[in-house]
């Protein structure tokens, strides 16, 4: 068999099962002789597996009833609202358009991530600074909770509550006002019976973006943060991620209730 020249194109064909079986052996030899190409092939294979895994679970999800009804001939009324996928499709165009800038490193995942990670960085810096403080951990103590919450709400510009985290084993120590870019941030500090501290860091966010919970780790300090309608919050501490998650879930609900109420 005469070995033909292989190119990067063959890497894709091999991954996608399009490389003729009789060329396979020569292709493998070519990979061995070209470490760059081998590395690329392995990287693509890893991404391919991740991609397949990421949606593999969808196949075993039960088929929504509305689809079964549709196919059995029962007319399924549709809402008048524009289908959500159209909006998502539009967003996809936008995201793709932003890709050039992204690849050049000009912007991150876009402004959402930039804003959100600034929030987390600020929260971690503030937590690291004040959680280590023995005497002046807070500006206003929990004994003046109403005053503290009212004051911080006014300065931050968000209707705040100091979430009750006793179910998670944490008592409010108090809070303080902090600078955050050109705005103000509120920090509520909590402590458990062993002296472990967790803080909530909250800023106003006028952009009505929403994110899921995200995690930023820096030097053993973790911050779970999110942007929601009108505000951003970061729950920061050295606790394991699961414990932070429980606190973040509780804080999220209480902050939301506080803003509605």
């Amino acid at each position: 068999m005469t070995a033909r020249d292989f190119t990067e194109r063959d890497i894709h064909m091999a991954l996608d099962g399009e490389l003729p079986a009789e060329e396979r052996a020569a292709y493998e030899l070519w990979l061995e002789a070209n470490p760059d190409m081998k590395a690329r092939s392995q990287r693509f294979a890893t991404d391919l597996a991740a991609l397949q895994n990421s949606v593999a679970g969808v196949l075993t999800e039960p088929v929504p009833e509305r689809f079964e009804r549709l196919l059995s001939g029962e007319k399924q009324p549709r809402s008048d609202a524009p289908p959500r996928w159209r909006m998502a499709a539009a967003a996809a165009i936008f995201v793709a358009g932003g890709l050039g800038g992204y690849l050049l490193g000009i912007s991150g995942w876009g402004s959402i991530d930039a804003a959100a990670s600034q929030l987390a960085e600020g929260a971690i810096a503030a937590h690291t600074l004040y959680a280590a403080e023995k005497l002046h951990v807070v500006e206003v103590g929990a004994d003046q909770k109403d005053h503290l919450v009212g004051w911080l709400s006014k300065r931050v510009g968000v209707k705040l509550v100091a979430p009750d985290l006793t179910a998670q084993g944490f008592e409010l120590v108090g809070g303080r006002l902090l600078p955050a870019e050109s705005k103000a941030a509120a920090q509520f500090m909590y402590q458990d019976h062993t002296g472990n501290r967790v803080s909530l860091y909250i800023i106003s966010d006028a952009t009505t973006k929403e994110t899921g919970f995200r995690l930023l780790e820096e030097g053993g300090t973790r911050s779970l943060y999110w942007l929601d309608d009108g505000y951003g919050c970061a729950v920061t501490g050295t606790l394991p991620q699961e414990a932070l998650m429980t606190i973040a879930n509780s804080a999220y609900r209480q902050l939301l209730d506080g803003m509605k109420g």
Partner: protein
Amino acid sequence: MDQRRAAILAEIPRLRRYARALLRNRDSADDLVQDCLERALGKLEGWRTGDNPRRWLFTIMHHLFVDQMRREKRRGETAMLPIETSEAMAVPAYQAESVASHEILDALQAISPDRRAALLMVAVEGFSYAEAANVLGVPAGTLMSRIARGREELRTILEDGSRRRAIRVIEK
């Protein structure tokens, strides 16, 4: 339920998987699947039972996807995007998704719809190049270059992402 409807029903899990990877958002994806099923049911008479229902359905869904992308593009992206972006980026509530899955699905949203569709058809749905080219309505050479560029883009985004310290996205 007749044979044809049963054949369509059997393809729903795959249609949902493809739509989910294509659009990221679960509800948006299922809306696309529903559009596709409605269109398919409307054209049922034109479909011969001997034909492969999978290719037929994926073709219908792809047309719906492309039409909509074009329409939105004409309508002007900037006006409606600041709001919509957050929707696409938002994490579906309580979705059990690993960090790796989250990263790759996010990265996928950042590559062009054409490349995304080509890559998913072959890499996830297991269509051959010839079948995928047929469904997407492009020559095989175009399909191949979309796949190659799509993979390359995806790799760049993921590598860039992993360089960015330890920011990880986890579910809400």
